[in-house]
């Protein structure tokens, strides 16, 4: 049985698609057959981040509506053959996804994959509910910023109430906190919520921390998940995150503040 993991946050722009792409690619690089699904109907973007936008022929809605077979809609990644992408539709029909259709697709994917990563849209509307409904685990992407923390709390409430596991009284969805766009120097200056603050506020275990990094924008410009960039701190932090997701013990890195900020503090710079 494949494990179904939703990447969600409530708030938009915190790094859900970046995270979905890098976690999926990281799992595939570790040898696990992985598919990443875009649930953002109407605003397809995972294909761009994964660099396969010109290879999209059919999408998830075509499959649900019976216009295409699942294998026709799946796109195999060119860098890693264990990795597949299921793009979403650009239809404006908000009801294009339903529990039954999504459930059938996930059932079929379970037969050939080890991990199914569901990239949730922002908000708490249908697309977000569909993305989290069947999840076994949830990665809550949070920025160290008040509105992101509040929205993460909100989405945790929805996971507790509206997921299949909650509705059927099964073991609860396993929750993981992933803090992204983190800047240790600003935390040291008291200008940014710390990892400990966010963990205390949300009360869920920490899966990883992705430092704010220029390499994330460069990776999305190029259509390469940043986890492939082994030189970058963000890429390495995603690789660590994937190892932890797989149950390995892996200490947090990139918490140190660069030396020069000490001088700045002394001279008030």
């Amino acid at each position: 049985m494949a494990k179904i993991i939703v990447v969600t946050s409530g708030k938009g722009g915190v790094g859900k698609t970046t995270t979905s792409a890098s976690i999926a690619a990281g799992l595939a690089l570790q040898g696990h057959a992985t598919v990443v699904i875009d649930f953002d109907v109407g605003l397809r973007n995972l294909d761009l981040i994964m660099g396969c936008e010109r290879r999209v022929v059919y999408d998830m809605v075509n499959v649900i509506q019976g216009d295409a077979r699942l294998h026709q809609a799946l796109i195999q990644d060119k860098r890693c053959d264990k990795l597949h992408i299921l793009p979403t539709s650009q239809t404006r029909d908000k009801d294009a996804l339903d529990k039954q259709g999504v459930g059938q697709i996930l059932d079929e994917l379970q037969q050939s994959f080890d991990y199914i990563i569901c990239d949730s849209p922002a908000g708490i509307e249908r697309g977000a509910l569909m993305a989290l409904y069947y999840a076994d685990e949830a990665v809550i992407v949070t920025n160290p910023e008040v509105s992101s923390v509040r929205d993460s709390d909100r989405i945790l409430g929805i996971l507790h109430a509206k997921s299949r596991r909650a509705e059927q009284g099964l073991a609860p969805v396993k929750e993981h906190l992933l803090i992204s766009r983190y800047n240790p120097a600003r935390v040291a200056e008291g200008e940014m919520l710390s990892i400990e603050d966010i963990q205390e506020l949300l009360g869920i275990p920490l899966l990883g921390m992705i430092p704010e990094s220029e390499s994330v924008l460069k990776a999305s410009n190029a259509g390469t998940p940043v986890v492939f960039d082994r030189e970058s701190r963000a890429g390495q932090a995603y690789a660590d995150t994937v190892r932890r997701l797989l149950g390995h013990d892996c200490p947090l890195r990139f918490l140190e503040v660069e030396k020069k900020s000490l001088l700045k503090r002394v001279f008030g710079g």
Partner: protein
Amino acid sequence: MDFFRRDPPKTSAAMAKERLQLILTHEHQGNMGSEPDYLPALRQELLEVISKHAGIDLNEVSVSLERKPDKEVLEVNVVLPRHDAH
């Protein structure tokens, strides 16, 4: 002398954490539907009385009910303007 009396400056991160703690507690109560019926009216009247006598911004006042295993704590948090701020 004034220097010694001044509160240590609160960092903006500490402010963020404090505000989030208050609002998340408040929203959790709402989500669970456990807020007693009288609380919204009580909250509104308390706010009016405080602002009438202290003449302060209603946004500087928060009223929340915290549930502990053996009791409920009604917490009214009022930020008063500094005297020298007039």
